[in-house]
């Protein structure tokens, strides 16, 4: 590379890139590599993988397009970006499917080799968009990625097909050049990933380097971009997805409770990864049972809790529905289990790979009888770590099932995580009952929790089950007054948890014209929208619920200080319904159920509409 090109370097504070291609093109991998490197060089970031439910949909089709969006910045990032600035389209279908979302002045990098008549037809293009006026107004870079890759790999022992598959690393190398990122993290990763196949390592390394070099020497790129590291708080960081953070959170909870971790689970998108992660933590003594079905997942967890483990089950909406009866059993037997619901689009099988927030009422109410459980929600990928520990703490302290809600977006999305010091995390251990004197299975402590007397403890042999229990003795009991008492005790136990959780925090002024109240994975979007509204002069604040049942004690007080409350959700208003019934107040709603995260510009528009005096009334 003797030839030194004279290229302009432009500083950017904020970029949103979307990689799109066939589901077999390796776009998720490309996106993840770009994210990890971007995190490593110190940018703040947020990601949005968006892929079809089909593993390998027919090549070239519109429904087979897989995308990965990444927003990175030298300042704080809240969302994966409303509108991509740059689209890398590996084929016509990827271009067609993503073009409408692109920034009108955006940049498009296309693999021209794939714009042949067959692929154009599959993408339902009447004429070649690279040759007509479809892309007018965009900055279009036409790069023959496939042929450049095969040229670079000339002489490789790999088959033509295998060589073709290296094109995503060429594209990645090119993007690394364009945004001034080092290759080394991806190089290390490739060497490790394909350690058993040297030819594959060599080919992909070559493709990566060739893409990078292409950026350097080609005349089509006249500018190179720099995004400076973000000013993040001091500490050690890693990039992490919600599912991995959650898995590490439960591992930490196991260590901090001094209890062995047990997971009973059945694979389901988008929760399977948690079972995969925990299955690899064997040297921490973690026991995972891939159960025969969702019901066995939760009931084996209940059995493990009875036997003294920190027990959990992980699932998504359809599995949650199947676990319903067993969660009631855990309520009745008052055993500590954590149920994780990584929400996806519903109802029924719905949209398995897309995100949604529509299991809230299922979590809070979805059981027969009066069966209260604690419900928590994580709001960002890294919050999954802390909420896993918190859910475990509450389950153990109150001897109760706890439902932890996350969603497909924060489960698969990633962001930089400031790794905490272990000593800063709470000890959540609880004692087992071992003393025979005065032992009754349903004699409660000050938290209304019953004693945890596990099989193997001499002298404490007792029987529990799903039939109503007599207060204190726990014997089967059908007495009407006892039933009424027990229904109330179980309810009070959960309500009392409100005394043991942090207050709802207001981000912004404590009072004003509008409070934007959210829960779960919409946190970043709402934060972004509120920030922009405040910058525009509106008296708006944000509050975000991480505890749904019980709600933080000050929730009603917080709401009262605002003229209006707006609750944006990716459902038809489930939190809104809960808040209305709990506090008997009017709330404004913003609901968009597209299987995708909300966009901050849409929420901002709603805020403006509400506060501009023209709210449609």
């Amino acid at each position, binding site marked *: 590379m003797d030839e030194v090109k004279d290229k302009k370097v432009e500083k950017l504070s904020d970029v949103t890139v979307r990689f799109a291609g066939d589901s077999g093109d390796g776009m998720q991998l490309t996106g993840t590599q770009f994210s990890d490197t971007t995190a490593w060089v110190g940018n703040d970031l947020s990601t949005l993988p968006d892929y079809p439910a089909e593993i390998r949909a027919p090549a070239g089709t519109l429904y087979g397009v897989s995308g990965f969006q990444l927003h990175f910045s030298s300042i704080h990032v809240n969302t994966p970006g409303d509108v991509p600035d740059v689209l890398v389209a590996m084929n016509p279908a990827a271009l067609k499917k993503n073009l409408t979302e692109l920034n009108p002045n955006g940049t498009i990098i296309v693999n021209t080799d794939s714009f042949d008549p067959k692929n154009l037809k599959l993408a339902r293009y009447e004429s070649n968009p690279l040759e007509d006026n479809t892309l007018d107004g965009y900055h279009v870079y036409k790069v023959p990625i496939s042929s450049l890759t095969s040229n670079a790999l000339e002489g490789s022992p790999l088959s033509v097909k295998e060589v073709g598959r290296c094109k995503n690393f060429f594209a990645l190398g090119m993007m690394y050049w364009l945004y001034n990122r080092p290759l080394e993290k991806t190089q290390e990763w490739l060497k490790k990933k394909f350690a058993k196949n040297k030819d594959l390592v060599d080919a992909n390394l070559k493709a990566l380097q060739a893409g990078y070099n292409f950026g350097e020497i080609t005349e089509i790129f006249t500018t190179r971009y720099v995004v400076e590291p973000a000013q993040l708080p001091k500490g050690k*960081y890693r990039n992490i997805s919600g599912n991995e953070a959650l898995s590490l959170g439960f591992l930490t909870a196991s260590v901090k409770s001094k209890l062995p971790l047990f997971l009973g689970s059945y694979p389901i998108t988008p929760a399977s990864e948690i079972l995969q992660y925990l299955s690899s933590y064997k040297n921490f003594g973690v026991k995972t049972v891939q159960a025969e079905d969702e019901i066995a997942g939760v009931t084996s967890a209940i059995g493990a809790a009875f036997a003294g483990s920190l027990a959990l089950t992980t699932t998504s909406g359809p599995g949650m529905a199947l676990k319903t009866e067993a969660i009631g*059993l855990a309520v009745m037997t008052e055993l500590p289990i954590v149920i994780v619901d990584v929400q996806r689009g519903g109802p029924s099988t719905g949209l398995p790979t897309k995100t949604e927030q529509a299991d809230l009422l299922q979590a809070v109410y979805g059981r027969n009888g009066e069966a209260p459980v604690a419900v928590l929600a994580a709001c960002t990928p890294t919050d999954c770590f802390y909420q896993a520990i918190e859910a475990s703490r509450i389950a153990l302290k109150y001897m109760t099932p706890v439902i932890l809600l996350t969603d497909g977006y924060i489960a698969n999305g990633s962001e930089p995580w400031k790794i905490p010091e*272990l000593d800063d995390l709470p000890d959540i251990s609880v004692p087992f009952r071992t003393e025979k004197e005065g032992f009754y299975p349903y004699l409660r402590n000050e938290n209304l929790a019953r004693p945890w007397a596990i099989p193997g403890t001499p002298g404490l042999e007792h029987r529990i089950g799903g039939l109503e229990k007599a207060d204190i003795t726990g014997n089967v009991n059908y007495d009407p007054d006892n039933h009424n008492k027990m229904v109330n005790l179980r309810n009070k136990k959960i309500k009392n948890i409100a005394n043991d959780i942090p207050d709802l925090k207001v981000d912004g002024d404590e009072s004003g014209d509008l409070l934007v109240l959210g829960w779960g994975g919409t946190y970043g979007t709402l934060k972004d929208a509120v920030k922009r509204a405040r910058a525009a002069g509106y008296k708006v604040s944000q509050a975000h619920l991480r505890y749904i049942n019980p709600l933080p004690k000050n929730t009603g007080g917080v709401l009262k200080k605002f003229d209006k409350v707006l609750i944006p959700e990716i459902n038809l208003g489930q939190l809104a319904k809960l808040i209305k019934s709990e506090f008997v107040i009017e709330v404004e709603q913003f609901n968009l159920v597209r299987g995708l995260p909300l966009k901050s510009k849409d929420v901002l528009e709603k805020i403006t509409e509400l506060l501009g005096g023209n709210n449609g009334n």
Partner: protein
Amino acid sequence: MATNDEVKEKKLTAKDFASDQDVRWCPGCGDYSILAQVQRTFPEIIKKDVEKIVWISGIGCSSRFPYYMNTYGFHGIHGRAPAIATGVKVANPDLDVWVATGDGDLLSIGGNHFIHACRKNIDLKILLFNNRIYGLTKGQYSPTSEKGKITKTTPFGSVDYPFNPVSLAIGANATFVARTIDRNPKHLQEMIRRAGEHKGLAFIEIFQNCNIFNDGAFSLLTEKDTKDDSVLVLEHGKPMVFGKDSDKGIKLDGVKPIIVDLASGSYSKDDLLVHDEFSDEPILAMILAHMTDHPNLPTPIGVFRQILRETYDGGIRDQINMVTEKRGKGDLAKMLYGANTWEVN
């Protein structure tokens, strides 16, 4: 372990296994016999301390069983006893986990858990109280009811075929499969003892009379004048002889079992099928299982099959030990840091 043996010297009796709860089965129910035989057998077979025994059940008459045992117990939800038991056993393999269940509980709503518990060879002892009827819901037909059975939900006779639980268990690779009868206490005790001694999933089908909704379902096998000609008692290594005067035998004709008359002089015991409980091949056990309810053949009871293979709970424990030995005990701080970290100063 010597100390454990010393502790065992205290000599438990059947009474030590009875809880303080009133037994609430209908008078005359076969469940009483099963409870009594379990309580009688346990002092002999339980090598562990009482606190290490756990009884788990689902829903149905049989599933009230744990309440009557003075051990740890868990009355679960319908069909899920094997799955709850799996959690208990995997979490603490040191426990002795027993499951009490019925034909509706185990083979209808809980069928999936049953076959997978067998397949995985989880070290559980499953006692199926098979009365071929739904008792607690008052008399609907069950998955083991014979075809054509008239019940409240099949007023014109059922049109579906029943499960043969022994065949199902063998087909799902259970490592110990036996059958016995509530009215044969000695045999029942022997089967409980054998199951208790087995390492791996042990399944016993117990023919149990529901004297309210399906009285006499097994009378052919229990009444004095018919039982000897209707029951074939399986014994390992012995030729299959039955009949009041031990004058009949079972012989194979191809893969078809047939009855031969030992008194006629044409056949001797040497011609008969010899039982092999420990065969690696499930074929013999399967042939025997399918003799059940055959109009012309006796119904076998006893141990159909017992083989040894690694248990699921043992496999999990061994894998944890192996990985821990290889990688060292997990270091949480290291784990949190992961592979790709960077420092912000």
